[in-house]
């Protein structure tokens, strides 16, 4: 950096700024001639040009030449695990459960609005939704919970004995 500062003081920036474009081949003809005329009489610019050219020709690579030797064995284990996850993933059941829960909540809402039945609080709705989404994996809705108390008021309860209490 100190070299650069000395260089900057000793030399007008106009020539130095043209060096990258000169090396990239994007300098117009006139500027190129001017710079080429200047280079023999300016050691600082020649040094700058040479350093940049050397760096460009020898850009260091960040990557090693090859992947680790155990790349495929590790990947194979991951692929096997992925297959197991794919095989056991309960996606279809979740979709059915979510659809069922959404339908149930919507139906209750319509019934509540249409018949003047008991108001369904948002907390009870969330609780119902959570239970219905997981209904195949969890215990039945507890009768003393808000959702359970609400379900106990529904006339459909006797027609669907497995659905709640």
């Amino acid at each position, binding site marked *: 950096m100190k*070299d650069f500062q000395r260089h900057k003081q000793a030399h007008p920036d106009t020539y130095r700024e043209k060096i*990258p474009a000169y*090396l990239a081949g994007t300098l117009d003809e006139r500027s190129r001639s001017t710079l080429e005329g200047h280079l023999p009489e300016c050691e600082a610019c020649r040094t700058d040009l040479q350093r*940049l050219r050397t760096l460009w020709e020898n*850009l260091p690579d960040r*990557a090693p030449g090859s*992947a680790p030797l155990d790349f495929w064995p590790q990947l194979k284990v*991951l692929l096997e695990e992925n297959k197991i996850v794919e095989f056991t993933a309960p996606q279809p059941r979740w979709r059915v459960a979510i659809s069922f829960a959404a339908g149930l909540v919507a139906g209750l809402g319509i019934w509540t609005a249409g018949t003047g039945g008991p108001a369904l609080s948002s907390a009870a709705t969330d609780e119902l939704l959570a239970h219905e989404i997981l209904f195949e994996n969890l215990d039945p809705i507890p009768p003393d919970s808000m959702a359970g108390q609400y379900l106990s008021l529904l006339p459909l309860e006797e027609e669907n004995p497995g659905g709640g209490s």
Partner: protein
Amino acid sequence: MDEKLLIERARSGDDDAFGELVRMHQDRVYRTAIRFVGPDDAHDIAQEVFIKAHGEMKRFRAKSALSTWLYRMTINMALNYLRGRRRELDRRERYGPGVSAPPPSPDSGIIDQEFTEAVWQVIDSLPEKQRTAVVLHRFEGLSAAETAEVMGLSLGAVESLLHRSKLALLKSFQESGLG
């Protein structure tokens, strides 16, 4: 074994054939990933590329070379990863540090490594397309035409990207005192 035959067998679910394809292409995927995201995250990216390739193998119609397909996946995954990381960094800058910066690696005192990293910081700061062209052409050794095929651009567009990136890099190297 012939790559086409291996691809056919891998598409029909033969994992040994897929493994052979992985061994044939793992180095270029790994190297490309490192050049985009650095050594710490490249392994994960390379694994993700092959996991995705395994899942998508049946849809691979071999219209382009397998290497082209894998390059594209690697670059897309690496750039997506970097975009996510940039968003996370922006968020941390805006809301304060959630996680402290990782400690410097034990080799951070080695001058060559520091110089290499300084050069790559400049390369990393290029716009995505310029950077991709530089990585594929300059470091991976693809011709301009092959680079164009991987990037889905015309040859002229890639040549223009390479010219602009060379000028931008040389300017930055000069400004940062690297060159």
